């Protein structure tokens, strides 16, 4: 049974409808990537799953439970974690404090989890007392992901993790995503950089104008010239 199921959701902002019936699933150990042109509704799907938006129609199920429209505070306790695209760190808090905030809902000591995050991102270990706002783009992304990992989530959702990063850093981030997945965390990500993310993903969904267009194994989508021409900008 898939970990996350999104069934035919229709939703939008205010009166503007953005999603016109989107469906997807994410399995226990999968990396799933959502790609598509701008304005397709990719980020909106993610916000909807995480309870920042309510579905007008359709349902979302996580780990057997219906979570449609459930508040983020509850979702983090179920094992769902989210990294927004922008404003994804606490700029005036140190790296260490950012991680502390990530683990806010957990009881007990956070030290073990923090060590695991520092192992994954050695750069952060060196800079743990530095203010997150003063770090470079790549480092900030690491802090953002580290914060989300403090929950020891079952599913990690990433909104455009490579946005604004230099190509070398993009590769590094995707490497880390792979490591995280290998450690047993399912990953759902929205990406502008279709090629690299589909190469990494087990499965991918192509979204356009708020609807599913094509889906399938990552490498298959990558290799399909039609998909590339129609939806991925060649």
């Amino acid at each position, binding site marked *: 049974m898939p970990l996350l199921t999104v069934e035919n959701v229709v939703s939008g902002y205010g009166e503007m409808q953005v999603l016109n019936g989107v469906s997807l699933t994410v399995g226990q150990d999968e990396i799933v990537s959502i790609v598509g042109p701008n304005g397709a509704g990719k980020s909106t799907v993610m916000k909807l799953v*995480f309870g*920042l938006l309510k579905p007008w129609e359709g349902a979302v199920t996580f780990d057997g439970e219906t979570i449609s429209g459930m508040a*983020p*505070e509850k*979702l*983090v*306790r179920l094992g769902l974690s*989210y990294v*927004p695209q922008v*404003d*994804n*760190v*606490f*700029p*005036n*808090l140190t790296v260490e*404090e950012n991680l*502390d*905030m*990530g683990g*806010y*809902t957990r009881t007990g000591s956070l030290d073990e989890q923090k060590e695991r995050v520092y192992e994954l991102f050695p750069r952060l270990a060196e800079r743990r007392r530095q203010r997150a706002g003063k770090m470079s783009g790549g480092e900030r992304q690491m802090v953002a992901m580290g*914060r989300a990992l403090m*929950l020891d989530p079952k599913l990690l959702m990433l909104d455009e993790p490579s946005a604004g990063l230099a190509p070398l850093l993009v590769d590094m981030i995707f490497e880390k995503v792979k490591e995280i997945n290998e450690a047993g965390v399912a990953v759902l990500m929205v990406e502008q950089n279709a090629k690299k993310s589909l190469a990494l993903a087990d499965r991918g969904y192509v979204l356009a104008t708020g609807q599913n267009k094509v889906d399938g194994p990552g490498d298959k989508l990558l290799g399909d010239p039609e998909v590339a021409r129609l939806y991925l900008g060649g």
Partner: protein
Amino acid sequence: MQESTSLELRPGERFRNILTSRGFMVVVLLLLLVGFIIAAQVKGVSANSLLSLFVRGTLLGGTLALGAVGVTLVFAVLKMANFAHGDTMTFGAYLGLLVIMLLPKGPPLAPFSFGYEFIVALLVIVPLIGLLTFGLDQLLFRPLRNRRAQPIMFAMAALGLAFGLRSLVYIFWGADFTFYYVGRARPAVELFAGVRVRPDQLFILGLAFVLIVAVYFLLERTKIGKAMRATADNPDLARVSGIDTNRVILWTWLIGGGLAAAGGMLYALDVQLRPEMGWWLLLPLFASVILGTLGNAYGALAGAFIIGIVWQVSSAFINPTYGHGIAFLVMVLVLLVRPQGLFGGSK
């Protein structure tokens, strides 16, 4: 603001960068202080009185700090300018009076002028007002937050609340000024070099200090304190991290309202109780907060002391009633030159 792409800054820009820098601001404040001392010399004010005024300024700064920290915390977490904060201080002070009146009168706790009743009143009123302000927030400001009202609406509501609280004070206690302990002697004691303070004032300063340190520990070391700072920093991400925003808001008001009550009671102990006292302190409070950077608790502390000292020391050579206006002028200067205050980052 235009960004300079070349490494070489044009002379005008360079000059402006210096003018708006933090270091320059500190220098100006120091120069101001020196200016005061010189002006005082010219006017023939003795070093003793100047020192006394300085000490009085520090004292005033301490009580202002309690109010200022509350204002800045509420602004940090709730993004709201709480115009009702001054009248919250007034309300707290008067409720304290009620408690003192209700308790059986005891003797003064030497060397202070107040008795056990004052301590009891503090212990009761501080948390009570904290809870009250939270309750008022849920009643008035929360609906506005839920409908994403403009900042002006919050300020309007705060204004209405301010006048409402004050009217209650007027109704129950009348318009005259009064004291916690009417007719009790309050002798002064020589501290050093001819500077005289009352033991009460030392208590006030000490208690203000203790409270500020307590707030520091709460913000830096406790889970809820860090959650408050996180919510102030990035409210959306705080939510996404699962931080219970409602609890954060509760604690913000408990601390903010509680400090206001304490500040009000301490000010009233030092000076007098009068229904306008809080509203009258609102300007210096906001001046302190802006000077110390909106949202920064330690900045509010620093700002409060600076404002307090400038206010008191300036009375050596201008009409004392204008001292109030001095706080305002300092604030306007800060807003013009460096609106982000002493501790804010560059624009």
